[in-house]
């Protein structure tokens, strides 16, 4: 993974919403939003990541991934091997090399 990128992974069925891709390396530059030139600061939060995924990567049924500006209940967000609740949730500021995993909770047996 190129050092400047954010490693994003999908598991437990979430990958089905992203063309069955389990892994995406997203360069920081992709976060720059030309329509918001004012947004000069180079820090982006997980909330921005959700927006980016919704706009550029999501292939199927938006409502299965997001609910408002949060992930849908049932999906755990894990940042560098920790539940994002431990990291400040959607406001966590991403750094190059971070690993963000979206895992759907399984109920089958």
């Amino acid at each position, binding site marked *: 993974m190129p050092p400047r990128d954010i490693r994003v992974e999908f598991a*437990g069925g979430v990958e089905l919403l992203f063309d069955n891709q389990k892994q995406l390396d997203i360069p920081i530059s992709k976060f720059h939003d030309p329509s918001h030139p004012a947004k000069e600061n180079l820090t982006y939060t997980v909330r921005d990541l959700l927006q980016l995924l919704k706009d550029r990567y999501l292939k*199927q049924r938006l409502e299965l991934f997001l609910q408002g500006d949060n992930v849908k*209940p*049932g*999906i755990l967000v894990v940042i560098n*091997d920790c539940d994002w609740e431990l990291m400040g949730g959607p406001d966590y500021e991403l750094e190059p090399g971070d690993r963000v995993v979206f*895992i759907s909770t399984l*109920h*089958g047996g």
Partner: protein
Amino acid sequence: MEFERVEFGKTYTSPLTPEEVNHYSRQLVLPQFGVEGQIKLKNTSVLLVGAGGLGCSAAIHLAGSGVGQLTIVDHDRIEASNLHRQILYRSEDVGRYKAEVLVERCSRSNPLSRMAPVALCTALTTENCLELVRNHAVILDCTDNVYARYLLNDACVLRGRALVSASALKFDGQLTVYNHQGSVCRRCLFPDPMALQAQSCDDNGVMGPGTQYLCWCFVRHRCTHHAVPGIMGSLQAMEAIKLASGMAVSFAGVQLHYDSLSGSFYRFKLRPRNPDCPVCGDKPSIRTLDDSHLGTNTCWTRQELKAKLDL
């Protein structure tokens, strides 16, 4: 082989019978487990809910370990399509109650357990769940739907029991120990099962091309590669045995996600107990087991679905 020669030179007055010493000798010599572990195990009662793929694997490993008393609860009967992943059932068992057959297999594999394993061929309900949980020290969630999982979760919180929960779908499996030494319960993560209900039906599989009318739920809920429940059930049993023999468990406050295709075992730390949790929080709103808190058994009632597929 008398006892002393096996042990590290320490002699134990052991309430284990010589037969048990021989039967468990391979575990007894393990210093971390030893005689104390086996005795604690022998005095522990375990409740295992769900006699499907997970339950078969977890139960047979638990029975083998010498757990004192094992109760298995499941209202389902064995169907032909279960056989490939419910490894202990045979074609001639089709039609019989799963719990009954599984108890039979377990008792024959370990005749030494202090009390014979018990089969309850009924569904887990808001009436019987609290009592069942209260009568057992260690609880295993081997069920396959949101309703039963939240029912067990609430009962374990209300009765102060740890809940060793595993799940499996397609090629993935998950494992964690809820409500143990301050670790989260299910509702700490997702307070409202109704939201999961709809989610669990759609989330795990998207309408494929050409099968629009077929709601995925009926097929997907049970479409799992057969070895995955076997793997997750044996890992689940390992945690339950450690819990029952007083050893430290590995998955309290930690979740394991296993992907059998890539052979990856992803472990991550879970948030602490949620003070606002509706059942285990500081001011819980849920104090009894009630269907209104639990959602339905499956997103579309099986009947409606079965009618559609005219099975």
